[in-house]
């Protein structure tokens, strides 16, 4: 055999963004090749928007070969729901909605005392997975988000209760993913595992991806609560001495409108958002997610129950 030339022409250099994209596309194709009924969780947030783009790229010129599912807490930002429906129509996708309000109505779950619906999302998600017999669920979670996420595999095995067992994960070697499972069990798949918040924004810029407008700076009526800025809306009412005021804000994450906070920002273009994200010293979830502040291991505990 020939020996390997050690001088690599510049033409064969690969940027980190291209390397991440290639890895994510590989992961998506693996799932479609090896599992029966995949579904992509689509919230209308920036990570799931990047996921849809990657799915388009992985199977072009064919259409995306799986449906998308939105776990709808009923506490949505209107802009995000509009975005969701528009995108699904453009791509000709099948949309499955797992509805928390319907589950509440049917008595499958009960509203929690604090009104947050993050925790009751999980049984609703699991019921939809069972109903449609999905065996692979693509999620847009990234390992840089949170310390429990940092431990997550790309292919993450869940038992038939949807539970994650962090002490007993399958070793994941090279790019040889093990998607084998028994009926009822499923694999959560995280193609964006190795992306950071900044990578996502660079990719949004490169691919010129449209996002719900709440990701860019705009004026909004807010209240300050636990050091975070919450938009005043039908889910968030001023409490006690809280005095609503107008502020120039944007959202770093788009989750349940009752527990997702905005950050002060003047970044109204993708370049300015990139500058802002590059300079920030606060994590995305630390800055804006009330649900992660419940305890030291809030995310791990929710994941164990079947949350993403």
């Amino acid at each position, binding site marked *: 055999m020939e020996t390997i030339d050690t001088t690599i022409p510049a033409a064969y250099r690969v940027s980190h963004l291209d390397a991440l994209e290639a890895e994510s596309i590989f992961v998506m194709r693996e799932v479609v090749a090896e599992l029966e009924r995949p579904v992509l969780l689509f919230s209308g947030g920036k990570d799931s928007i990047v996921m849809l783009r990657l799915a388009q790229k992985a199977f072009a*010129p064919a259409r995306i070969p799986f449906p998308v599912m939105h776990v709808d807490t009923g506490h949505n930002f209107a802009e995000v729901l509009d975005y969701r429906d528009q995108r699904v129509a453009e791509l000709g996708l099948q949309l499955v909605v797992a509805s928390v309000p319907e589950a509440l109505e049917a008595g499958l779950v009960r509203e929690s005392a604090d009104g947050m619906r993050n925790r009751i999302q999980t049984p609703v998600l699991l019921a939809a997975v069972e109903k449609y017999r999905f065996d692979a669920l693509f999620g847009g979670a990234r390992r840089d988000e949170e310390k429990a*996420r940092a431990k997550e595999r790309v292919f993450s095995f869940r038992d038939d209760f949807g539970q994650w067992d*962090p002490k007993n994960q399958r070793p994941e*070697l090279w790019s040889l993913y093990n998607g084998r499972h028994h009926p009822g069990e499923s694999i959560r798949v995280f193609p964006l595992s190795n992306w950071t918040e900044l990578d996502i924004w660079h990719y949004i810029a490169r691919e010129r991806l449209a996002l719900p407008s709440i990701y860019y700076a705009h004026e909004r009526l807010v209240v300050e609560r636990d050091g975070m800025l919450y938009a005043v809306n039908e889910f968030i009412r001023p409490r006690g001495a809280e005095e609503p005021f107008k502020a120039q804000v944007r959202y770093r994450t788009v989750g349940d409108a009752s527990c997702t906070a905005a950050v002060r920002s003047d970044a109204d273009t*993708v370049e300015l958002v990139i500058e802002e994200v590059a300079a920030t010293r606060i994590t995305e979830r630390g800055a804006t997610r009330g649900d992660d502040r419940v305890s030291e291991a809030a995310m791990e505990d929710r994941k164990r129950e079947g949350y993403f």
Partner: protein
Amino acid sequence: MSTTAFPVAEGAAPEGRAMDLLRFATAGSVDDGKSTLIGRLLYDTKSLFTDQLAAVEAVSAARGDEYTNLALLTDGLRAEREQGITIDVAYRYFATPRRKFIIADTPGHIQYTRNMVTGASTADLALILVDARKGLVEQSRRHAFLCSLLRVPHLVLCVNKMDLVDWSQDVFERISDEFTAFAAKLEVPDLTVVPISALHGDNIVTRSEHTPWYEGPSLLHHLERVHIASDRNLVDVRFPVQYVIRPQSTTVTDYRGYAGQVASGVLKPGDEVMVLPSGFTSRIAAIETADGPVAEAFPPMSVTVRLTDEIDISRGDLICRPNNAPAVAQDIEAMICWMDESQPLRPGGKYAIKHTTRSARTVVRGLHYRLDVNSLHRDETATELGLNEIGRVRLRTTVPLLADEYRRNRTTGGFILIDETTNRTVAAGMIVDTN
């Protein structure tokens, strides 16, 4: 307010700066300062966020730790915090203006060797920490051996806690010499040794005043500049077919593309290619991506290849060059790292095997020896491999694998074994020989 937006500032070029990516794994014994080193790298590259630090400070204080315990940054699981040890690989990210980094922070404990193997399997480089006061311990040797077994191309030995040995050049050189002598018995293509203090930040980002006798680079300087592009094999064309794209569409008709990620080599339209295992030859008609056709494809690109001839090709087949093909083999000699705690590997055992995009079944025909990873002694009387043990086996597969030696190609030379009852991944395998 519009519901969708892609606002671009005037005159702006929406391109992220093209940096490359270095994946590295950390290894070392418990208490050698691995977590402190990672905390230091994250902190000094401004990749540590104030809320993460505040959370760690609060937990440290509540636990009564005397100083902020940076290990809490990387030990994210309840059980890890309770026991104060790292159980599973955690992945961390940071960037400098020159490069993006992915750290696989692997556990030091011997019972989690499989997680060390997991982290090292995709690493371009491994950091091995030793405590300057203790010198090389069993675990340093074990990790160096695992890195060489997994063909991690670059090794960096970090002699840590130099402040606790008065920055002694003698101590540093003694450890360095001892490690170099050990590495000579392994196949370590590139070794760098750096004296550091992770706690105080010496020789991490900048050269330390405490080590005037050390003439090498700081650790970060080395990580930023170590040459990894040539680690990729651009010679042997290996394109495992991952998925066949055949749109059922009225607008796209008669399309048949072979999707996959280039494992090695460079593919170009017009190239003569051979498809394994059938052996049919054809030419590359086009190499396509969703962004349009490309003139070349090379690792790690994910592309779709179209051929000039209609050949029956499916997932698990492999495209190569007619004069440079991998072996088509059902009998495989391999080194195995056993990862299952419930049952050992024994001759006669049957498993599912996953190799590139190809899946088959396999039977263990024989166990040649079990390797003592500390002494490198081969125990030929061994009859089984237990959890975290490594040995050489002979396998027979139900269908041929399209395989290279692992030392030539990490993609076409590596495989996993899966227990067909539990579906668990029970072994990592590296092909030694295909005759």
